């Protein structure tokens, strides 16, 4: 007698779908969306080297993509909504898994040695919180102009100059970008694992790719602010 599966019991409440692995998949997919956005954002930033007109023109183009078929800044708002959903989903999964991990070990070890974990993987959670704080500041500074010397009326290029000519802002930006880089170093590898796309043979390649993407993005994002700080762009 072979008993296999009884298919009548397959329907269960939605809550059951929210396994830790499902949360991880949400984290991985929202993370991938955010990495794709970061690549586009970095390319946009590098337009600062092409001069003020080119940069401002690019900014204007972002607000008119799809015109006149789509009215106004429809595309830009679509991108913003997707990003917002991705960020919220990413944070929801992170907080939920963080809480699960905390209740999974209520009593800590007196002595605990890390054998395999990297600095990047250790800073995922606090790094993520700092990155969130940075994103809020970054939007207030350069998108809304609320905390920017040029205010909300200034041209995007002038706002960027005003921001990064201030060493404190550039320092905060640099720290955050480096944290993003480390976040990606572990995140890209982790997402590959979570989505079940890694194996022993691919593991090395995945890790090199994660380091390469993280490094390219970090350097790409740091070039513009430091060039402004040291007067290479004005």
């Amino acid at each position, binding site marked *: *007698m*072979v*008993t*296999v*599966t009884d298919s009548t*019991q*397959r*329907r*269960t*409440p939605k809550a*059951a*779908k929210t*396994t*830790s*692995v*499902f*949360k*991880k*998949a949400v984290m991985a997919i929202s993370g991938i969306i955010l990495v794709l956005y970061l690549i586009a954002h970095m390319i946009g930033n590098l337009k600062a080297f092409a001069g003020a007109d080119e940069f401002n023109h690019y900014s204007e183009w972002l607000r008119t993509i799809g015109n006149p078929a789509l009215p106004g800044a429809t595309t830009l708002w679509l991108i913003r909504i997707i990003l917002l959903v991705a960020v919220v989903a990413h944070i929801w999964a992170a907080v939920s*898994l963080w809480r*699960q*991990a905390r*209740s*999974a*070990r*209520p*009593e*800590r*070890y*007196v*002595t*605990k*040695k*890390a*054998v*395999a*974990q*990297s600095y990047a*993987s*250790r800073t*995922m959670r606090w790094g993520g919180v700092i990155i969130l704080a940075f994103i809020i500041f970054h939007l207030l500074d350069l998108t809304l102009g609320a905390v920017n010397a040029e205010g909300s009326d200034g041209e995007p290029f002038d706002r960027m100059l005003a921001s990064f000519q201030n060493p404190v802002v550039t320092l905060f930006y640099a720290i955050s970008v480096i944290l993003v880089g480390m976040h990606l170093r*572990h995140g890209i*590898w*982790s997402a*590959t*694992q*979570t*989505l*079940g*796309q*890694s*194996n*022993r043979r691919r*593991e090395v390649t995945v890790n090199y790719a994660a380091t390469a993407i993280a490094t390219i993005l970090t350097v790409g994002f740091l070039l513009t602010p430091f060039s402004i700080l040291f007067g290479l762009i004005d």
Partner: protein
Amino acid sequence: MTLTQDGPRSGAAGAPEKRGMNLTLRIWRQQGPTVKGKMVTYKVTDISPDMSFLEMLDVLNEQLILQGDDPVAFDHDCREGICGMCGVMINGMAHGPQQTTTCQLHMRSFKDGDTIDVEPWRASAFPVVKDLAVDRRAFDRIIQAGGYISVPTGTAPEAHATPVPKKDADNAFDAATCIGCGACVAACPNASSMLFTAAKVTHLGLLPQGQPERDDRVVNMVAQQDREGFGGCTNIGECSAACPKGISMETISRLNHDLLGALRAGARPKS
């Protein structure tokens, strides 16, 4: 400690007397599951480097019994590295500084005068029974949730009837070496049992006999490990580094692949 622990070689006539190691042990003592525990310091002397870690604990316990104290409770069974009972945290590492089981860890891994911290596995799913002994039945319940195949027992089938590719057989066997000791949970910063569950899912999922229940197995085992209160996996890799059998992170990727596929195919955990 006055018991001599001379190895067979040092007993030869005329051989210079070899002194053993003197160690300071800081051991987690906890009377019961609901009592608060604490680290207690003990000294052991003349410990032979050829002793296993468990034999060293036996020496300590004999000493405690002679003094009329309560011996340290710790789990152990085969003392051959295959049963998975003897897991303890030694100096902050699951099963100590070597990638093996505690019974196969020898005192030569330590130096004379060392202070060694010994703690139980710490996870809410592995409650402390007493001192270093924890209740690992959560693993049994994960197995009960799907870590088996439903086949008729009886005469062994003809071996050539179901061919298995060599690569799959090797990978399945590597995963099947998991002894369920719990070092993965103990070492994981999230106290996740993912490597254990992944080893079982891989072991059965790669073989033809495991196919009919493959989707339900992964969905139910993961649901059970969440229900037991284990943490979620963040792919840090401490588990694999601590695993006495060296189960690879690849198994976790395979579990995720199977689980996401099974959820898409409509498999849902039994409530």
